[in-house]
Every structure is written in structure tokens, then in C-alpha cells.
């Protein structure tokens, strides 16, 4: 009698890679246990015991030479030309993996300062494309009809091939791209598919458009209830015994048990969080950097971050986006592209006309 619809569907899916499903109780509960998503690809780094760190100098040089040859092969990759397609509202295109660099102030033409974060777009190469029928993820989120969406596998960041497992490197064999630090899956409209080996750069986005940035928050470790949930704790004086930073009452009498999701001490941070609707103020195409508004992007400076076109309905682009990616002539664009209202540092000092 405790098996409801929810359990049936959960247990109905395939059990993969030691993931244990806990018993969900009544469907009236809003709390749904957050199951850890199993890793869809093989282990990335070789274990310390398997690694050959104690090589002689001669052997190290030999391995470097051989990996250089592989690199040369990869650089000779011929990427087929992509044809630009018409973008319509609702067609999701590929995202980007970027590195959060840090805070950067920008000023508008009327003198107000904008707090921005610089995101450096590290090497992003397309490794694989899974068309709608092929892509079948284990965790189904509320992203609409999966049967109609494809998946682009994008590799980002340089990695030392000597440290990677053979299984993981096998994922790159087909594409011929040098193995990367990370592979990300972006769920896209089938028309947004890019050929294997294409590299995506900062010009994929435009100045003035809005993006969502997903990052993993800084790990604060095990934290108490005051820091983690903002509780007020107990009084500091007036005879309080051992109740200065505690959570107080856990539940009231009706159900005679504690509700699921009760705020208690635990691990704080190290969670994926998205900031929505961040405006792009400036793009540097030479260094592949974009300046995005705000400074609260999850993660420490230097951490990797995922950028998507915004989902917010009131921040949708008015002009069609570069679809599937920017395919124009880069050299025609200036090195630094600024939003209209931004004051360029090389421009004259801002002055106002005196009142008459």
C-alpha cells in the first residue's frame, strides 16, 4: 500500500552503476530525494597506483615526443564547413564551458559603474553529436521532449594524456580531437548540431544578449545551522546554557516526527547553482573573454563554469542569434566589442553639458 506511482516509475528505470534508490513515501510529499547522477563516462584520471610518475628523464622525453605527434595529427583535423541556419525562438543552441577569472569594473557612458565578471572561454571542441533517437539520459529533467532534442558532446580544457585512462581517451578516438580535461553534454535543437572537431569561441555570443551561468559553489565544508541556514541561534547571555548556536526546536507535536528536509547542520556549498539573465557587456575575441554582469557567479576564481543562452522569457534576444554558431569573418570585427552604453577606456573623459 506504500507503493505509489512515483516509486513505480523510479524503480521502473534501469539501475546503473551501484546507484541505490531510496524508498519514496507518499506522493503528497514535496520532498523528492536528490539521487546522485551516475557518471556517464569512464573514469577520467588514472589512479595514482597505475600512473607511471617515476619515469626516467629519457622516457619522459620519449612520451612527450609521441604525444606531440598526436597533437600534430589533431591540429591537421579537417573540420567540414558549417552552413548558417535560421534561428527561431525556442531553438536551443549549444552552450560553452568557461573559466571564471574574476571581478572587473566597467563604466557606462553616464558614469555609473557596473560590476562585471570576466569569463574566459577555454578551448571548446565538439567531440560527438548524438541525434534525438540516440540520446537517452538517465536523469530526466523538466526540459521538454527529449525525443526531439539532440546532444552535443563538447570537450574543454587541456589535459595531459599521460594522466588519463585509456577508456576515457577512447571517447576521443572517433573525433580525432586531443583528449580534454572535461566533457560536457549540451542538449540542443537538432538544427544546432555542429560537426565533430568544430571549436566554439567567444563570438558564439553577442554583446547585449543575456546568458545563464551554471557553476559549483565554493565548498564551505561542514557548517552549523547559523551559517548554513541563517538561523539566529540563542541568546549570548542571561544564563543560557549551551544554546548559543543551536537550531532550537526540531518539530511540533502533531506528526511526532521530523519533516524531511529539516534545516540542520551539514555540508554547505559544493552545489550546482545557476544565475539567470546575466547581460553580456563586452567580448574580447582575441583572448576569448566575455564580461558578464554581476559578481555572484558560483565558484572560486579559476573554476569552470557553464554558459547557456538565457531561459528567461523577458530576456530573449530580439534579433536572431548566431545559429548554430558564429560563422562570419572574425577579422572584420574589432578585437574588443563593447555594448552600446559602455564607455571605452580609450575614449575621452565623460563630460556633461552645463545647464542653460
Amino acid at each position: 500500500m506504500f507503493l505509489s506511482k512515483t516509486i513505480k516509475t523510479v524503480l521502473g528505470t534501469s539501475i546503473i552503476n551501484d546507484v541505490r534508490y531510496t524508498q519514496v513515501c507518499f506522493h503528497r510529499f514535496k520532498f523528492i530525494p536528490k539521487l546522485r547522477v551516475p557518471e556517464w563516462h569512464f573514469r577520467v584520471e588514472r589512479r595514482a597506483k597505475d600512473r607511471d610518475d617515476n619515469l626516467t628523464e629519457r622516457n619522459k622525453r620519449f612520451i612527450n615526443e609521441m604525444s606531440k605527434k598526436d597533437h600534430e595529427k589533431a591540429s591537421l583535423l579537417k573540420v567540414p564547413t558549417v552552413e548558417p541556419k535560421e534561428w527561431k525562438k525556442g531553438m536551443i543552441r549549444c552552450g560553452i564551458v568557461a573559466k571564471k577569472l574574476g571581478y572587473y569594473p566597467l563604466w557606462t557612458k553616464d558614469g555609473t559603474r557596473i560590476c562585471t565578471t570576466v569569463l574566459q572561454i577555454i578551448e571548446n571542441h565538439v567531440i560527438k553529436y548524438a541525434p534525438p533517437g540516440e540520446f537517452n539520459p538517465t536523469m530526466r529533467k523538466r526540459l521538454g521532449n527529449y525525443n526531439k532534442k539532440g546532444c552535443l558532446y563538447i570537450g574543454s580544457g587541456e589535459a595531459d594524456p599521460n594522466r588519463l585512462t585509456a577508456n576515457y581517451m577512447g571517447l576521443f578516438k572517433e573525433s580525432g580531437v586531443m583528449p580534454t580535461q572535461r566533457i560536457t553534454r549540451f542538449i540542443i535543437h537538432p538544427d544546432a548540431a555542429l560537426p565533430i572537431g568544430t571549436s566554439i569561441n567567444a563570438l558564439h555570443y553577442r554583446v547585449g544578449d543575456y546568458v545563464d551561468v551554471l557553476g559549483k559553489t565554493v565548498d564551505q565544508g561542514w557548517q552549523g545551522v547559523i551559517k548554513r541556514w541563517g538561523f539566529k541561534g540563542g541568546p549570548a547571555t542571561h544564563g543560557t546554557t549551551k544554546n548559543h548556536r543551536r537550531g532550537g526546536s526540531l518539530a511540533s507535536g502533531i506528526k511526532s516526527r521530523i519533516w524531511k528536509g529539516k534545516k540542520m547542520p551539514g555540508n554547505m556549498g559544493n552545489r550546482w547553482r545557476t544565475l539567470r539573465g546575466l547581460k553580456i557587456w563586452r567580448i574580447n575575441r582575441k583572448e576569448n573573454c566575455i564580461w558578464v554582469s554581476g559578481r555572484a557567479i558560483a565558484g572560486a576564481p579559476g573554476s569552470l563554469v557553464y554558459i547557456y543562452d538565457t531561459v528567461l522569457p523577458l530576456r530573449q534576444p530580439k534579433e536572431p542569434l548566431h545559429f548554430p554558431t558564429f560563422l562570419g569573418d572574425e577579422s572584420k570585427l574589432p578585437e574588443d566589442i563593447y555594448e552600446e552604453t559602455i564607455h571605452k577606456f580609450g575614449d575621452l573623459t565623460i563630460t556633461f553639458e552645463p545647464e542653460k
Partner: protein
Amino acid sequence: MLRILPKNSNYFVNSQFLFLRHSSSAPAAATNEKNKEIANYADKKRIKKGSKKIPNDFRFKYQDFLPSPTARYRNSLLEKLMRKDMLERRSQVHIPEFYVGSILKVTISDPHSQGKTNSFVGICTQREYTGLCTRITLRNVIDHQGIDVAYDIYDPLIQKIEVLKLEKRLDDRMLYLRDALPEYSTVDVNMEPELLAEGAPVPVNETIVKMKPLPWMQKWERKELKGIENLDQYLNLWRKQQREKQATPWEKYDLMKEYRRTIPEEQQNKIFSEIFDRINKINEEHKIKAKAARRTITKPQNIR
């Protein structure tokens, strides 16, 4: 117990802490001739072939170009982009050499005032942050009212920054002027700039300041400030006892702390050699402009 440092240690970057530190262990004191030889060789090795000889005062003059020493926020690309933008802004506005304790006049485009410009003269009491975010606070007492104004140096609304009196003081942060007698913060608004001879060292003004009675805005007695007169006369027993309790006399021996507060010489040289040519060019251009401006002012008029 770990000593908790403030999160944004940008606050530590000031001229006092910009002494030269080598990223590798420094060569031993050159007492013998042999040691001298070794020291010279080590020096030569450190200076790469064909690198420019950067004058010693660059790290004081162009303090803003040095990044914040907090390792967490260091990023070479970010710093490179910032330096480029800083040079661009400097090509429009001459940002002179100044220190905490110098008297500055800042003219800004003010959308609120009628004439659309506004100027403020005051002593520079502190210099915060680095790079494009560099901020200074000027203090003056006008009509018996103490006023502090903060300016972002690289703000595009700033039309001019003039140094009316270039000098250093005994401390690197002079916020204690708020609790000092008003005469020490008063600066004549119509002051004429005092020029120093070119190449002359920056004078150190050793005036010691008298304080108002308690209460103060901060516990100045705990901050090891040299520019204040005998503080004990203003304090009560409790404050003196607390100062002894809170004192950290071991800090001056803490090498790692000093290490974390500074940027090594090699990195400094690298940064300054990048900007060397451009910044010298910009300075020359500003000098020429200033000369031309002076010429137009002193043009004789025919009065008939």
C-alpha cells in the same frame, strides 16, 4: 588558534609593504669578495637577457599596476586585460605619482552640479584596492566641517588629478585624521601647487598629530601608528590593558605573512617591463600637453 585574516586582503597592498621580495631565496649578504661575486652572478642570472632596466621607483609610482597579492584572486589573463585598459585610461587622464599624505585636487564631471564640473582639494588619507578598482579618499575641513570624499582613480568622470603637494607621511593609512584635531586635516582650497625638483626624493612629512578626546572611530592605539602623538594620555586603564592583550608582537617576525602581502621582484619586473614603453610615452605626451596649456594661460594680452 588560527588568526583569521579579512577575506579581501587587497587592503594590505600599500607602499609600506611594497619592499622588494625575491620569489626564490635571496642571496646571502655580500660581505666577502667571494660572496659579492656570487651575489653579482645571482643578480645577473635573475635579470634576463635584453630585459629593460626598470627604475626602482616604478613600484611606488605605478602601484596600481601591481595585482592584489591574495593568491586566490590572482589570474595572469585578468591582470593583463586590466593593465591594458589602465594604460588606455591613463592616455586620457594623467594620473600622477602620489602617496597617502599628499595633497591632491580632483576635478570631476558632476551631472548634479550646475556647471557640470566639481573639484575637491584634500589630503589623501587612504589608498585601497589595485588595478582598475583603485580608490583614494581625500579629506579636508571646509567651514569647520570635516569632509571625506572617495574617488575611483580610473573613473571616466574624473577630468583631472593634480598633486598640489607631493609628500609622504609616517603612516600608510591616515584614517586617524578623522579623530584628530581639525587643524591637521585642513587644507587651503585655493592652494597653489608646490613643485619639487625633478629627480628629487619624495619628502617625508614627519608631523605628529594630536587627537581629540575619546570616543574615536577606531581603536587607534592598537594599530601601531607612528604619526600620532603619545596616545596613552587619551586612554584609560581598560583600553591600555586590552591593547596589551590584543597586541601581536610576533607579527613582525612572521615571514610568511610578509610573503603573502607582497609581490616578488621578478613578477614586478615582468609587469613593469610590459608597460614600460607605453607608460613613458604616455607621460611624455601629458608633459607636452601640460606645457602647451601653461603657454596659453601666460599669453600676453594687448590692453589698449
